[in-house]
């Protein structure tokens, strides 16, 4: 029987994979809510996801703040509105740029490392060995990693936002002689809970998505060592795409509830 367009185009594979991700997520919630809890492994994963990403997130945040301010300031000066720079940069970073850029960095670093790690364990049959030894590999490997990314990515975003604002302050201080107190006074005067809460809430979903896609791609990788690279690659690509979709949904929901 010749393959139909539906089978050839990969659309079927897309729907199949979406269904598999859904089932994978359902299994995660089921396993996460039942004992035993792998606390130590969770902490270890949190350390790997959180602390070991700090430098990268910090550097990204600092450069993001510096560049955003340097790029925007001349335009604001043309309008004679450089006094609004702290407010504008603050809102931009807290609402959108900070969460999305840092989540993308995390998707690149953490998503790929999870995909590659679990993929290599899968192809080297370490996961199968764990099952044989009576350890629940899903609970030990997947649940801890997804929980770690879900909890750590928001903290990394907060950390990155703070450093980005500091970077912005450095430029404002150098170019406009704005004091530290005045800068942050202006930032927080402009910000409201409608900016902070939805932006922070969506980072939990970003973290969950990064962990889920990374684990799914690694846990379900096939075709030997080539599959490991493929798993790492697709984990980053799919997670990044999913981040933008989630961001769009989050903005829509926030607009309804917080009247942005």
């Amino acid at each position, binding site marked *: 029987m010749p393959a139909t367009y539906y089978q050839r185009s990969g659309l079927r594979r897309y729907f199949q994979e979406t269904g598999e991700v859904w089932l994978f997520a359902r299994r995660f919630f089921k396993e996460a809510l039942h004992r035993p809890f792998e606390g130590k492994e969770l*902490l*270890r994963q*949190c*350390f790997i996801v*959180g*602390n070991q990403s*700090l430098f990268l997130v910090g550097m990204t945040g600092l450069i993001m703040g510096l560049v955003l301010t340097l790029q925007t300031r001349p335009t604001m000066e043309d*309008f004679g*509105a450089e006094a*609004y720079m702290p407010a504008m940069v603050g809102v931009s970073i*807290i609402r959108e740029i900070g969460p999305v850029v840092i989540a993308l960095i995390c998707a690149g670093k953490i998503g790929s490392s999870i995909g590659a790690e679990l993929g290599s364990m899968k192809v080297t049959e370490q996961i199968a060995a764990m099952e044989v030894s009576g350890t629940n590999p899903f609970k030990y490997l997947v649940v801890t990693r997804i929980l770690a990314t879900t909890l750590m990515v*928001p*903290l*990394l975003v*907060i*950390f990155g*936002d*703070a450093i980005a604002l500091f970077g912005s302050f450095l430029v404002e201080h150098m170019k406009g002689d704005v004091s530290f107190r005045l800068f*942050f006074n202006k930032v*927080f*005067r402009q*910000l*409201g*809970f*409608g*900016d*902070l809460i939805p932006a*922070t809430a969506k980072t939990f979903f970003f973290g969950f998505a990064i962990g889920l896609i990374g684990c799914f791609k690694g846990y379900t990788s096939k075709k030997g060592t080539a599959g490991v690279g493929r798993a790492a690659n697709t984990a980053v690509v799919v997670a990044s795409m999913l981040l933008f979709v989630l961001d769009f949904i989050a903005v829509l929901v926030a607009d309804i509830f917080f*009247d942005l």
Partner: protein
Amino acid sequence: MAHKTEDTVKLGIFITTAVALFIVAVYFIGSEENMFGANLRVSSIFSNVNGLQPGNNVRYSGINVGTVERIVLLNDTTVQVHMKLDKNVQPFIKKDAVASIGSDGLVGSMLVNISPGKGTAGMVEEGDVMVSYSRVETEELLNTLGKTNENIALISNDLLRITNQMAKGKGAIALLLRDTSLAASLRQAVFNLEATAGHLAVTGAELQKLMAEVNGSSGLLHQLLHDTTVVANLNSSIARVDTLAARAEPFIRELQSSAESLSASGATLERLLEELDRGRGPAGLLLKDSAAAEDIRQILENVEQSTARFNENMEAMRHNFLFRKYFKKKEKEKEEGGGGAP
């Protein structure tokens, strides 16, 4: 194992720092929205809120003292704006304070401005509805600006004409600018003014000194200025002088009349003397006609001679027997009259 513990500590530090940053952000945002601390809720009614939104700032004398809590449409022309203010500013906001809607700069967000009321009114209380003032609409503002621009264009045209005339040397200002002698005169006038001012200063100092002396001494001026009895006495004296003047008036009038009569007599005398001088009339003739004078002198000589002869005749007659008795009798009576009356 030790390595794992150290990792866990590092993780703890990271989590604590991130959570602390989040709490700091929540605190600062919350304090900007007056979520912490005691609040005072007041409202104000407007016909148009110009895009004001919940969360916008409320300013009192330019200081952020609260936020707009909610905006309620009461009817087709009335909007009630509920505000949440910092309780600490309650003593400063009076009941007659006026709320108006403004914006934070040209491109800034909208806000509510509370202008201070009078100090006599009591302080605003929870739930009070403040008096509002509707600001000028942007369209109205632009219309006014348009009119102002037209006026400015007219004024600038006039100015251009004036400056052109000045450039051509017409008019007093051009003369002032171009004429060096006028400038010199002006300079001289200024010098004179300066000198006058100097003199005035000296005079002022002297006056001040004089006044100090007047104030310090007990002379007439001091009494005039400070002693009320002197003024009363003066008033009384003036009243008396008035009375005297009233009484003297008829006398003066009579004097005047006499003077007029004298003047008339003088005129008559003058005329008479003039006539005399011209030799008119018998007296004039006497004074001026020498022939007449000679005649009169001759007459007088004749009269004198006649009188002498008459005396001689009379003496002769006394010795006449006819009249002797009469004369004796007369002498006798004369003697008796002289002795009887001591």
